C-alpha cells in the first residue's frame, strides 16, 4: 500500500464502553507503527458518551484519556450535554466509529449516527449489529448514494474476518453458511456435554465467569445469533433479509437427557445458525463429533459452503473488547487504503 506522506485521518468515536475503550488503547498502541510503516496518523477528534462528548478538532490526546480512566469527564475536552446525533454533521472528520450498545428493537441511536455520518461525507465503521440486521439495505444504499464506505466486521464473530470473505471469495460462489455465532450458548451446551450438568447450572456458571449477561435472553434464545446470521447472509450472499425473516429456536428447553443421548451416538447438540436455500434458521441441531462445527467453549465458527472450493471454515473468539477493537482497526485500514492510497 503506497500512501501519501503523513496523511492525517480524523475519526469520531461514539461509545466509550468496553469496545470503545479497547479501541482507544489499541489505537494508542498502534499509532506509531501506522505512522512509520504506512505514513498515516489516526486522530480521534471526538469521543461521544450518552451525556456529553470529549472534543478537540486537533485530535484528543489518547494517553490522557487512557490515564483518566473513569474520570474522563473532568478533562478539558469534555462538553457536557453535547450529543452525537446533533454534532456529527458539523464535525470535520473522515470516519465515524460507532460502538454504542446494541438496541435490538430499534437499532437507535446507532442508525441515526450512521445516517448522519454518511450524509455528511464520512465513512462508517460499526461494531453495533442492530443497524445491519434491521436496516442493512437502506444503509448500504445510503452509503452508495453518498459514495461512502461502510464496514462492520466486528458485528459478526468479532475479530474473525468472516465479512471480509465477500471480497476474498469473489471468484467463487457462496451457497450456504453453517455457523455457531454465540459464545454464551456454545459454552452452555459444551459444559452440558462435557460435565453432564443441567442447562440451568451451566448458565449460572457462564454468568459467574462473565460469559453470560445477567439477562441472558438474547444469547440463549438465539436472537443475537440470528442478527449476526442476517448480516452474514446479506453481506456474503447478497440476500435482502432482516431479523424478522429468521426462524429462531433457543436452547433453554434442552434437557440433559437429550445431550446425553446424542453423546452416546457420537453427536453433539449445537446451536447452529444456518443460511441456505433462501432460509435463515437458528436452532439446536445434532452435529457429528468430528464436524468442523463441533467446537467447544466460547468459540465461534463459520463454515462457508462454496460452489467451487467446498467448505471454508473460520473459527476463533467471537467476542471481547480487544477482539472487536482489532476488527475496527482492520476496517479502518481498509478504508484508509481505499480512500487515501495512491
Amino acid at each position, binding site marked *: 500500500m503506497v500512501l501519501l506522506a503523513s496523511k492525517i485521518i480524523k475519526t469520531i468515536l461514539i461509545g466509550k464502553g468496553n469496545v470503545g475503550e479497547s479501541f482507544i488503547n489499541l489505537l494508542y498502541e498502534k499509532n506509531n507503527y501506522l505512522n512509520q510503516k504506512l505514513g498515516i496518523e489516526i486522530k480521534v477528534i471526538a469521543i461521544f458518551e450518552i451525556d456529553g462528548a470529549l472534543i478537540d478538532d486537533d485530535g484528543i490526546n489518547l494517553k490522557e484519556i487512557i490515564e483518566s480512566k473513569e474520570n474522563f469527564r473532568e478533562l478539558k475536552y469534555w462538553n457536557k450535554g453535547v450529543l452525537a446525533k446533533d454534532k456529527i454533521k458539523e464535525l470535520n472528520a473522515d470516519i465515524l466509529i460507532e460502538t454504542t450498545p446494541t438496541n435490538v428493537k430499534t437499532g437507535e441511536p446507532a442508525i441515526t449516527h450512521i445516517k448522519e455520518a454518511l450524509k455528511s461525507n464520512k465513512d462508517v465503521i460499526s461494531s453495533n449489529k442492530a443497524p445491519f440486521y434491521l436496516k442493512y439495505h437502506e444503509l448500504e444504499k445510503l452509503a452508495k448514494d453518498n459514495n461512502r464506505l461502510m464496514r462492520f466486521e466486528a458485528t459478526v464473530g468479532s475479530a474473525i474476518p468472516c465479512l471480509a470473505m465477500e471480497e476474498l471469495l469473489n471468484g467463487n460462489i457462496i451457497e450456504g453458511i453453517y455457523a455457531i455465532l454465540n459464545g454464551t450458548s456454545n459454552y452452555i451446551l459444551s459444559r452440558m456435554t462435557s460435565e453432564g450438568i443441567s442447562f440451568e447450572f451451566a448458565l449460572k456458571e457462564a454468568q459467574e465467569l462473565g460469559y453470560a449477561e445477567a439477562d441472558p435472553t438474547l444469547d440463549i434464545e438465539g436472537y443475537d445469533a440470528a442478527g449476526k446470521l442476517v448480516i452474514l447472509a446479506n453481506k456474503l450472499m447478497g440476500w435482502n433479509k432482516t431479523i424478522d425473516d429468521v426462524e429462531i429456536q433457543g436452547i433453554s428447553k434442552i*434437557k440433559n437427557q437429550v445431550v446425553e443421548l446424542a453423546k452416546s451416538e457420537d453427536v453433539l447438540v449445537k446451536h447452529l445458525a444456518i443460511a441456505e436455500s433462501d432460509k435463515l434458521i437458528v436452532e439446536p441441531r445434532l452435529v457429528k463429533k468430528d464436524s468442523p462445527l463441533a467446537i467447544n467453549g466460547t468459540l465461534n465458527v463459520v463454515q462457508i459452503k462454496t460452489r467451487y472450493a467446498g467448505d471454508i471454515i473460520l473459527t476463533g473468539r467471537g467476542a471481547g473488547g480487544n477482539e472487536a477493537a482489532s476488527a475496527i482497526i482492520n476496517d479502518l485500514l481498509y478504508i484508509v487504503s481505499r480512500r487515501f492510497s495512491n
Partner: protein
Amino acid sequence: MIILEALLKDQPGSLIEFLKPISENGGNIFGIIHDHNKKKNNLIPVHVTFELHEELLKTNLPKIREALEEKGIKISKLTQELAQQEMKVILWGHVFESDIVNTVKRIAEKGARVSEIRAKLLEVKDESSALLTIELPVSIDKETILDTIQQICKEKNLLLFKSE
C-alpha cells in the same frame, strides 16, 4: 442397483444372448454369477447385478424384460434395490405417551423407515428423549421427511433435534 435372475439353457452362447439386452439398453453390469453346479433340467440359474441411469429406468427396464422374454428366457427376478440414506433425529417430550407407533407409521407413509429407536426414560409420567435412526431411499428428499416429522412434533408438542 438392479438385480436380475433367470434360468438359461446350458448351451454355448446363451449367456451372451442373455446379457445383450442389458448392455444394449444402457445397463452397466456389476457382477454375474453363472453357476453350473446348480443346473437342473438343463437350466442354469444366473444372477446379474447392474446399474441403469436414473433417466433410463422407466423406459429401458421394461425394454430389457421384453427383449429377454422374446428370446424365451424365463425371468425369475427383476427388482430395483434402491440405494438407502440414513438420518438421525432426537425427539424430546412425551415421545411414548404421544403414541410413538403412530409417529413411526406416519414416517413410513412418506416412504421412510424408522430402523432403530434408542431412548432415555425416567418415570412413565415424565418426558423422555428418543433417538430415531431413519432409513430412506436416496430418491426421497430428506427435507420432505423432516417436514413430516416437524409437523408430528408440532402436533404432539415434542422438541425436534435434526442433524446438521
